[in-house]
């Protein structure tokens, strides 16, 4: 498993810590703890979703995984290779196998180049490295477009502006596939896609998991889309750099025990008429403020159920109360906050 080209690369992260020196008026000079010791793993072909608000550290995590950001401490291994111990030059071929799918397919593609040119560059490099003939480049470009459900004849000669948002995002995914990635990091990958096309992209990512064995790290604030990508995977709820609830996706979505997860799930719009709101739906909490205290539980300042203990002591991730999922709350309590389908609809 030391060869970066070998398949079956699982991702294993232990105790990832990352902090930034903050700028700006309010927080100037403070240290923002983007990640406070995050553990997660994704099997080959598996999926992990990270959900949380803006500013909770989930994007930083994706960037670290793709090698776009360093981390302060902890360990990260791809396909069994511990990357922290390698020199930066030896590290890069491993990180190449993790490709990012960004939120905005409009700015992720060079507007002056055709799809053919966009796909040709990484393929040509790869052909040079592996001594493959030019014909392979053409064939492979068509192949990756087929994989993402695009008609090569239609798409190849076109410029990005001639394609819809959904098609553009598929081109971005096809480009990522040119390097035979072991993992895709999809950061809000469908939030700018038209609603009628969104499910198609989600299904595509799910298919790539099973057909190519690609692992997917899905980063979003939208729990419903996370559920589609990784119904059989793991869901991590992250708050101010700490994982506060983690378990099988369906368990966490259907049966959350941490009040923060419950707030997130309560905030999902209810489709009145075909859904009824959960009986214990929580009202939205006050916004996240990085200057809120860090002594005890990080969520205590916004938590409707916080006690003195919560403000003094920080709960660790564990199974307190014999829950299926891991959580970081002194008072795990099931509440039905998620909307349920109305019978007969």
């Amino acid at each position, binding site marked *: 498993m030391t060869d970066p080209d070998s398949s079956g690369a699982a991702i294993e992260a232990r105790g990832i810590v990352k902090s930034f020196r903050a700028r700006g008026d309010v927080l100037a000079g403070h240290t923002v703890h983007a990640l406070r010791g995050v553990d997660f793993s994704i099997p080959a072909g598996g999926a992990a979703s990270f959900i949380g608000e803006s500013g909770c550290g989930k994007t930083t995590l994706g960037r670290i995984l793709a090698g776009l950001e360093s981390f302060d401490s902890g360990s990260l291994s791809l396909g069994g290779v511990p990357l922290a111990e390698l020199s930066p030059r030896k590290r890069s071929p491993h990180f190449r196998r993790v490709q990012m799918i960004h939120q905005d397919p409009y700015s992720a593609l060079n507007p002056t180049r055709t799809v053919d040119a966009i796909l040709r560059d990484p393929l040509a490099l790869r052909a040079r490295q592996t001594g493959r003939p030019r014909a392979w480049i053409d064939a492979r470009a068509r192949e990756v477009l087929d994989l993402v459900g695009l008609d090569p004849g239609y798409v190849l000669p076109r410029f990005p502006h001639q394609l819809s948002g959904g098609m553009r995002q598929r081109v971005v995914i096809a480009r990522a596939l040119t390097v035979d990635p072991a993992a895709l990091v999809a950061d809000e990958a469908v939030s700018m896609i038209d609603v009628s096309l969104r499910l198609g992209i989600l299904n595509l990512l799910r298919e790539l998991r099973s057909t190519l064995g690609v692992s997917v790290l899905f980063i979003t604030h939208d729990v419903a889309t996370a559920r589609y990508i990784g119904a059989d995977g793991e869901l991590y709820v992250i708050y101010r750099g700490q994982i506060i609830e983690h378990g099988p996706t369906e368990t966490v979505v259907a049966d959350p025990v941490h009040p923060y997860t419950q707030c997130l799930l309560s*905030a999902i719009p209810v489709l009145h008429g075909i859904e009824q709101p959960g009986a214990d739906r929580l009202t939205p909490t006050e916004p996240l403020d990085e200057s809120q205290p860090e002594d005890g539980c990080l969520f205590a300042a916004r938590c409707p159920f916080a006690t003195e203990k919560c403000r003094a002591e920080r709960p660790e991730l564990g199974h307190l109360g014999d829950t299926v999922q891991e959580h970081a709350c002194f008072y795990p309590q099931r509440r039905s906050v998620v909307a349920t*389908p109305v019978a007969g609809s």
Partner: protein
Amino acid sequence: MVAATQATANAAATAPPAVAVRDLTIVYKTPAGELPAVSNVDLYLPAGTITGLVGESGSGKSTLALALLNAVQKPGRIATGSIDVEGLGNLVELPAKRLQEARGGEIGYVFQAAQNSLNPLKTVGKQLLDLGRSHGVKDRAGLVRSARQLLARMGMDAARVLDSYQHELSGGMRQRVGIMFALVLNAHVLVLDEPTTALDMISQANVLSIVRAVHAERGLTTLVVTHDIGVVAEVAEHIAVMYGGVLVEQGPTEDVLRAPKHPYTRALINAIPRVSGDPSVARPLPGRPPTLETIPKRGCVFRERCAVYAERNLPECVTEQPPMLPVADGPGRLVACHAVGTKESVR
């Protein structure tokens, strides 16, 4: 001029105005000639209600929303139709000076991505005074007082916000500042274009609950334009669904969600990832939304992606855009589809 000082006092006393859009067509000049972005739209916003206008990119929803300010930018223009705001008259025929007063005055507008529509070089307070100046407000102290009340009502530290530049505010806070600007001159019609795009779930829920509360307290007639049916389901009692420049379905939100009549509405609801229920029942819509150039010139605009047309091949779907007609399924329901049984007699 004194409007600002009376803002909160008067808000509840004045009845909100109804808005009637009739046979509105808006065209854009393109190399291929003038193409309609909005075609023969009839939309009625009952006084005091929230209506949600849903559509995908290129559906014409933002163009329609801008028409409520009669602010469609060149190369676009309103070709036919009228926009009647009760107590104000037909916006299309309003004299330029009166129209300018009405924009931001009687009609408040929160622009798409309000996060980016604030001036980055001026504090919120400075921009507030600019707004007052452009609308001839003499009582500046009163204007600031109204702004503070609105900001405080939306759960913000008013003094700090007025002293802030946009980059010092979070996305949710900027959106609330946008709502303050729209309402501070005592508007009674409020148009919000994509009020929650780019906000995370909790900020979105906060903004939506503020929209609901402010709407009720100030007695507004509100239009929320969005691509997200969930947003409409949360705030709006009426829904209007737009596709390819035409309205395809309207009605009470719950009824439409429960039993959508138009094949597009049905497909759109089926395509939404949900948090509960069986995920495998969701289906993506084939094809893609039309752009200005690809909207069919004849026949139903949704035909190419329509499951019903694929199955039944009705000839009228090819020749004629179906008119919006009442259906028998309950009051206030209108559908534009040849394949849906309508109450012809009502017409």
